[in-house]
C-alpha cells in the first residue's frame, strides 16, 4: 500500500489517538459535537420560555414527526457530498415521486406495486444524473440542476398542474402507523441513518467515498474507482429522495406539483451543518441527524412561542452561514494536517534517524480553498 497515496490518506484520516479517556474527551468535545451542546442550550432556553408547552413528550414527538422527511432528504445528500458531488435534483425527485405515486394510485394501482414503481423510477432519475455528471463530465452543480428542471417539467406535465387526491389514501398507513405517536417516517429516516453510518464508517466503500471527496485525482491514482463511486452515490441520493417522496405523499394525502422544491434548502442546510459535527469536517449520517434535530427543535420552539414571521428565517440563515464557515475552517485544517503528515513521512523516508522523534514541523501549507 503506498505511503502517500490516497488509500493511505483514506486510512490515515484523523483518528482518535491515545487512550480511552483522551478518545472520550475528543468525542465529547465542543469541536466534535458542538451542535449537541447547542441543542441542549436551545432545549433549556425554550423550556424556560414556554414551560407549559415545550418540555413535554408531545414536543419531542412533534420535532421527530415534522422533520422526518427533511431528515431523509438530508441523509440522501450525505453519500454524494462525501464523494464530492452535488445533487440539486433531490427536491424535484421528491416531487416527481410524489406525483407519480399519486397518479398510479389514482389509476387503480395497489399501494405496494405503485411504491415499487416509484422507487425504480427514482433510481432511473439517479442513473440520468449519474450519466450527466460522471459520463458526460458536466459539473454536478449544473448537471443536477438541469435534471431538476427537466423533472419540474415532467411534474407539470404529469399533473397538468393540478393536485391529485384520488386513491392516495391507500398509502395513508405509512403516515398513520405510529409508536407512541412517533410516526413511521421517523423510523424510516432512523433506519436509513444507521445504514449510512455503517456504510460510511465501517466499510471500505465508505472510506473510498471520503477519499474521493477529499481528492478525486489522488483517489483515482490510488486505484480507487472514483467514477463508479460517484455514479453509485447519485443513485443512492435519488433512491432516498424517491422514498422521501413516497412518505410525503402519505403525510399530505395528495400529489401536488409544488411539494418538492421547498425541501431542498432545509436538506442542504442540515447536511452542511451536519458535516461540522462528529466526523471532523466530513459529511456524515450522525452529524446530519444532529443538525436536523437542532434545526427542527428550534423551529418547533419558535412556533410554540408564536414569534414574528422573520425569526425562523433569520435563525436558519444564520446557522447555515456559521455552519459553512465552520466547515471551511475544518476542511482547511484537515488539508493542512494531511500535507504536514506527508511532509513528515517524506522527511522520515529521507533521513529516518534525524526524523525519528521530535515535534512535527509543517513544511508545506495548504492553499486556502
Amino acid at each position, binding site marked *: 500500500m503506498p505511503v502517500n497515496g490516497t488509500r493511505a490518506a483514506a486510512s490515515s484520516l484523523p483518528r482518535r489517538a491515545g487512550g480511552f479517556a483522551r478518545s472520550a474527551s475528543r468525542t465529547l468535545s*465542543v*469541536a466534535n459535537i*458542538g*451542535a449537541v*451542546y*447547542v441543542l441542549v*442550550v*436551545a432545549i433549556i*432556553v425554550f423550556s424556560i*420560555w414556554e414551560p*407549559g*408547552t415545550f418540555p413535554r413528550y*408531545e*414536543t419531542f*414527538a*412533534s420535532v421527530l*414527526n*415534522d422533520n422526518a422527511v427533511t431528515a431523509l432528504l438530508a441523509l440522501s445528500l450525505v453519500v454524494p457530498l462525501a464523494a464530492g458531488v452535488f445533487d440539486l435534483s433531490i427536491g424535484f425527485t421528491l416531487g416527481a415521486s410524489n406525483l407519480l405515486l399519486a397518479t398510479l394510485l389514482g389509476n387503480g394501482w395497489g399501494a405496494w406495486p405503485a411504491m415499487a414503481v416509484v422507487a425504480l423510477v427514482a433510481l432511473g432519475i439517479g442513473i440520468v444524473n449519474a450519466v450527466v455528471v460522471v459520463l458526460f463530465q458536466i459539473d454536478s452543480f449544473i448537471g443536477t440542476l438541469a435534471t431538476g428542471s427537466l423533472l419540474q417539467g415532467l411534474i407539470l406535465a404529469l399533473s*397538468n*398542474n*393540478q*393536485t*391529485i*387526491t*384520488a386513491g*392516495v389514501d391507500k398509502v395513508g398507513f405509512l*403516515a398513520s402507523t405510529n409508536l407512541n*405517536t412517533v*410516526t413511521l417516517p421517523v423510523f424510516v429516516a432512523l433506519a436509513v441513518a444507521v445504514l449510512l453510518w455503517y456504510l460510511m464508517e465501517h466499510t471500505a466503500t465508505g472510506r473510498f467515498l471520503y477519499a474521493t471527496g477529499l481528492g478525486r485525482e489522488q483517489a483515482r491514482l490510488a486505484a480507487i474507482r472514483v467514477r463508479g463511486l460517484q455514479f453509485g452515490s447519485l443513485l443512492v441520493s435519488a433512491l432516498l429522495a424517491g422514498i422521501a417522496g413516497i412518505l410525503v405523499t402519505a*403525510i*399530505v*394525502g*395528495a400529489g*401536488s*406539483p*409544488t*411539494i418538492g422544491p*421547498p425541501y431542498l434548502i*432545509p436538506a442542504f442546510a442540515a447536511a452542511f451543518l451536519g458535516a461540522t459535527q462528529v466526523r471532523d469536517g466530513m459529511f456524515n449520517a450522525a452529524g446530519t441527524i444532529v443538525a436536523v434535530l437542532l434545526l427542527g427543535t428550534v*423551529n*418547533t420552539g*419558535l*412556533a*410554540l*412561542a*408564536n*414569534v*414574528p*414571521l422573520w*425569526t425562523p428565517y*433569520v*435563525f436558519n440563515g*444564520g*446557522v447555515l452561514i*456559521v*455552519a459553512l*464557515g*465552520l466547515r471551511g*475552517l*475544518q476542511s482547511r485544517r484537515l488539508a493542512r494536517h494531511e500535507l504536514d503528515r506527508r511532509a513528515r513521512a517524506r522527511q522520515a523516508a529521507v533521513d529516518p534517524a534525524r526524523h525519528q522523534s521530535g515535534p512535527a514541523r509543517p513544511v508545506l501549507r495548504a492553499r486556502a480553498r
Partner: protein
Amino acid sequence: MVRKSSAILVGLITAVLLVAACSSGSSGNSSGGGNDANVAAADTAVAKLLKTPTNVGVTVPIGKQIPAGKRIVFMSCGTPTCALLGKITQQAGALLRWNVQVVNAGVTPESVHAAWARVASNPPDGVIGIAYPRALFSEPLAMLKAHNVPVVECCAPDAATNGIDYVTSTPPEAVVYGRQYADWIIHDTKGNANVVFVDDKDFPIVASLLQGFKQEYRKLCPKCQYSVLEAATTEVGTTLPSKIVGYLRSHPDVDYVALGFDAMATGVPQALASAGLANKVKFIGQDTDVLNKTYISEGKQAASVAFPDYEGMYRLIDALARLITGTSVAPDNTALPSKLYVKSNLGDPSKNQPLVPDYLNQFKHLWGIG
C-alpha cells in the same frame, strides 16, 4: 477556532430568541360566548350557504351576435389554481369560438410585468388577469388601453377604471366570504368559538377576508375570542402545518382555525393528528381544491367556502363579450354565486365542480348560442 465558532452559534441562537421574545403575536377579545339570537342568525345564514345556488348572477342576455375568432389572453399566475381557471376560461371561450391563450405570468413582479409587456406588444382582442394588482403592469395596461383592448380581472384589489374594464371577485366580495367564515364557525360551535385566523399578507384579498370575518364575528359573538397568526406563502405545505400546531399547543383554548386560503391546509390534518389535536381543533378555508374536498369527505376539514371557478371565469368571458359587442357590462351584475362545502353537500370530492348545476345553459342563453 471551532470552539469559538460554536460559541458564535450559541450566541446567535440566544440573540435571535431574545429579540423574538420581545415581540408578540396579536390577540383578540376577552372570553365569552354568543347569545341564542346571534347563533340563530348564524344558523340561518349557514342554511342558505349550504344550498346549491341556482343563478350565475347575470340574467340579461347580450342580445347581439358575438363575433367569433377572437384572440383572448389569460394571464395565469402558474399555480395549480390558476391552471384550473385557465382551462375553464378556454372552455368558455371555445363556446364562442374564441382562441383563449394561457400565458404564464409567474408570481414575481418582474415576471408579471414582463409577461404583460409581451402581451401588450402584440395586442390581442381581450385580456383576462388573475389576482395581480395593476401596479405591476401599469405601462402595458396603458398600451392595451391605447389599442382599445378590453381588460377584465378576477380576484384583484383594483377598481374597474383607467384601463381595467371589469373586475369580479373584488375585495368587497372577499369581505362576504369572511363573513361566511364567521357564520359557519358560530353555527358549528354554537357561539363558543376561540379562533385563530391564519393571515398571509402576500395576498391583499386575504386582508378583505379577515376584515369580513372580524365584522361578522364581533357582531354575532361580541365576546368570542379570536387571534391572528401571520404566515408566509413560502411556508404553505412545508413548515406551516407545524407552525399552526405550535400555535395551537401554546394556545390550548383555540378550537378553530380559519385559513386565509384553502391551499394552507396542505399537511395540516396530519400535523393535527400527530399532535393529538385532530378531535379538538377544526379548520375552515376558502377557494376549495380537490385536496380540501377530500379532507372534508374524510372529516379532516370542517368546511370550505367555495370559489365559483366556473361561474367566475365564464363571467369574465361574458364581460369580454359585452365589451367587444358594445353591450353594457353585466347590467345586473350581482355577486358571484356562493356555497359552503361541508361533508353533506360535497358532491364528487375528486373533481372541481361548478356551483350552479346548469351554469352552462344559463351562459349559453346569455350569449344566444346552442
